């Protein structure tokens, strides 16, 4: 049996390839309104109208066949058959932005010249209309010598026509090859660009000037003063929302887990199994799942920023500041994504052209406050910081949260500054980026994004967090102290003994035994720290009712304010995340850089926590 034909979606960045891929295959690839969303190949299956299966590839966007960043290299390799373990595609769908034919047709011409069967998807026809353009697909098809199908990927318009056109060219490669390979296409970009402009002109029936509201918005969003105020306001609103909007759903989840824990304690006979379920699974995992609403609110904001087209504006505004530390505004996009999670953030650095720039961005990405820190921050802030109003609607808790975020950002800039002058020294890189038009975020995309994140979070809670919590529970529960011993159960256990051994190393920075107990399993994932605290106090204080309330009481009883602040600072800097270390290894091809990253971040964490503890103690907090 011959394998299904392989078809690749290729085109300029942000032309709608992933949106088309989703429309054609029913997949849910990430779509976003900025160049560089897709950074690796994704395969999917679709069927043509006659039932023939087709294997479809979604590829990173590129401007030409000469790659300037790692993601563009993937595209070049796949469509020229140079990718190891991948066959040459049987056809390509060239996706062009109908509102920007002048530019996108140039790459289309290069792709057509490759000689593979081609269908051009004239995507974003709706935006072209919004811009007052009327296009003539037939004229374009005549000029290009390949079928041209108008589509609106996000509304699934033109999808059937596209499939039909595809069915027409697959297996009829030679005819297309003759039409396109007439020698008039050269590799000279300027010449191709001129030809593209001529074709675009021939394919445009009329153009009515319209008022472009993208420009109107940009008048504020890109304004040197107003723009920066807007950016700060957006970020501040985001953190404030994370802290205030989640209260009601989080309380409901907490109540649910508390009821569950109490029910288990009431119905099961006292014993190891009851302790495992009530103290380990429910107290530990429940302590983390409570933060689902917060994490979703954070992702909601980031998804809106990504879908609206604001990301590139933020990059534009930040370029000046980024340049001062040796980076470019482009690096701000992966860093902003790292507010959600450093793993996709580090992946997104593949669209950064300069190798040293990219490496620096990878090394500082873990300093961006990711969503896994939220449970830790929220628990500690909620326990130790009073929620007094400071001014207007701003409250102290939100302000402390915001400063922790700022601390991460400042730390990252400082780290970049030092790294760029030492280990990642190199010529300063440039900043050149296409700015997409603003788009209204689509409810469907945002909901799918939220659903996927919720699922990932719950899966983490059910696997890595559950697993670490159970191990910690076991290490905390055995061996049991002999009857009549005045050593507490925790201190007598394996984990307690380990913690008591290493705690002296952390005492100078104000950490107590409970914190070292939480930090070790939290190497797996930051949220585990919260789960671990939940488990430690559930075992230590078995008579307390289940739920967050008794955890907070225990914290207040056993931690001082300087200790709590030092603990927060630790989490600003410490590289407590296996996945981040693993992705860094993958993206830098070796252990050298992840080892370096872990080392410098631990040193920073230790110094920052120590300084915080001593200053806080000295001023009598």
């Amino acid at each position, binding site marked *: 049996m011959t394998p299904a034909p392989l078809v690749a979606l290729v085109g300029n960045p942000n032309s709608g390839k992933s949106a088309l891929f989703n429309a054609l295959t029913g997949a849910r690839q990430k779509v976003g309104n900025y160049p560089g969303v897709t950074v690796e190949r994704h395969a999917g299956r679709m069927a043509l109208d006659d039932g023939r299966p087709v294997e479809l590839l979604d590829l990173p966007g590129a*401007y*030409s066949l*000469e790659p*300037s960043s790692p993601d563009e290299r993937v595209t070049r390799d796949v469509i020229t058959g140079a990718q190891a373990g991948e066959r040459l595609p049987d056809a390509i769908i060239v996706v062009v932005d109908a*509102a*920007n*034919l*002048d*530019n996108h047709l*140039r790459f289309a011409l290069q792709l057509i010249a490759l000689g593979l069967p081609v269908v051009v998807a004239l995507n974003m026809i709706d935006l072209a209309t919004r*811009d007052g353009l009327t296009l003539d697909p037939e004229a374009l098809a005549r000029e290009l010598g390949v079928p041209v199908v108008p589509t609106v990927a996000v509304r699934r318009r033109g999808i059937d026509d596209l499939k039909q056109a595809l069915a027409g060219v697959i297996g009829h490669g030679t005819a297309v090859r003759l039409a396109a390979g007439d020698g008039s296409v050269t590799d000279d*970009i*300027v010449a191709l*660009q*001129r030809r593209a*402009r001529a074709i675009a002109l021939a394919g445009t029936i009329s153009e009515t000037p319209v008022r472009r509201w*993208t*420009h109107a918005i*940009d*008048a504020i969003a*890109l*304004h*040197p*003063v107003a723009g920066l105020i807007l950016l700060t306001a957006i970020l501040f609103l985001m953190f404030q929302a994370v802290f205030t909007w989640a209260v009601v759903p989080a309380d409901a989840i907490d109540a649910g887990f508390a009821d569950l824990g109490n029910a288990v304690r009431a119905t099961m006979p006292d014993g190891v199994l009851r302790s495992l379920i009530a103290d380990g699974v429910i107290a530990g995992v429940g302590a983390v799942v409570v933060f689902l609403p917060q994490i979703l609110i954070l992702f909601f904001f980031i998804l809106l920023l990504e879908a609206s087209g604001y990301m*590139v504006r933020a*990059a*534009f*505004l930040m*370029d*000046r500041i980024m*340049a001062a530390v040796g980076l470019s*505004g482009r690096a701000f996009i992966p860093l902003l994504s790292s507010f959600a999670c450093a793993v996709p953030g580090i992946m997104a650095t593949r669209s950064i*052209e300069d190798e040293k720039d990219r490496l620096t961005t990878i090394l500082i990405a873990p300093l961006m406050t990711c969503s896994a820190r939220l449970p830790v921050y929220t628990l500690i802030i909620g326990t130790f910081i009073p929620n007094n109003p400071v001014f207007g609607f701003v409250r102290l808790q939100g302000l402390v949260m915001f400063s922790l975020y700022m601390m991460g950002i400042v730390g990252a800039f400082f780290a970049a500054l030092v790294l760029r002058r030492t280990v990642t020294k190199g*010529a300063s890189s*440039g*900043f*050149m*980026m*296409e*700015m997409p038009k603003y788009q209204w975020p689509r409810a469907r995309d945002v909901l799918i994004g939220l659903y996927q994140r919720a699922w990932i979070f719950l899966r983490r809670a059910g696997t890595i967090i559950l697993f670490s919590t159970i191990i910690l529970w076991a290490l905390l529960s055995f061996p049991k102290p002999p009857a009549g011993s005045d050593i507490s159960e925790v201190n007598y256990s394996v984990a307690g003994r380990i913690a008591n051994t290493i705690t002296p190393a952390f005492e100078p920075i104000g950490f107590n035994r409970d914190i070292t107990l939480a930090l070790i399993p939290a190497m797996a994932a930051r949220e585990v720290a919260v789960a671990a605290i939940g488990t430690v106090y559930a075992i230590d204080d078995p008579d307390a009712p289940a739920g967050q309330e008794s955890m907070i009481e225990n914290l207040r009883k056993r931690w001082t304010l300087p200790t709590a602040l030092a603990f927060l600072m630790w989490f600003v800097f410490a590289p407590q995340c296996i996945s981040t270390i693993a992705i860094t290894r993958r993206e830098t091809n070796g252990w050298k850089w992840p080892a370096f990253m872990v080392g410098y971040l631990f040193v920073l964490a230790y110094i920052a926590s120590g300084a915080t503890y001593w200053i806080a103690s000295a001023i009598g907090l």
Partner: protein
Amino acid sequence: MDMSTSVMISVTLEKLPRRQPATVAGIDWAQLAVPEARRLRELGFDEGVAIEVLHRATLGSGPIACRIGRMTVALRRAVAGAIHVSTP
């Protein structure tokens, strides 16, 4: 740099007033790094193309956002300084 043929060249994109329509008169490729020059070509910068400065970070030396053809492109001032434009 071949600019002997044109007498209109007097201003670079860096100095072009905001919202003043202009066309690209010539690009001083020698002033640009190789990857920068290539990306500039790929984004459609070429003699005769209509260009306009949309936004400019007036504080310090931030980047410039310009309209080129149907695109909005952000670039740094050093690059803009290599792009010569003529105004009608």
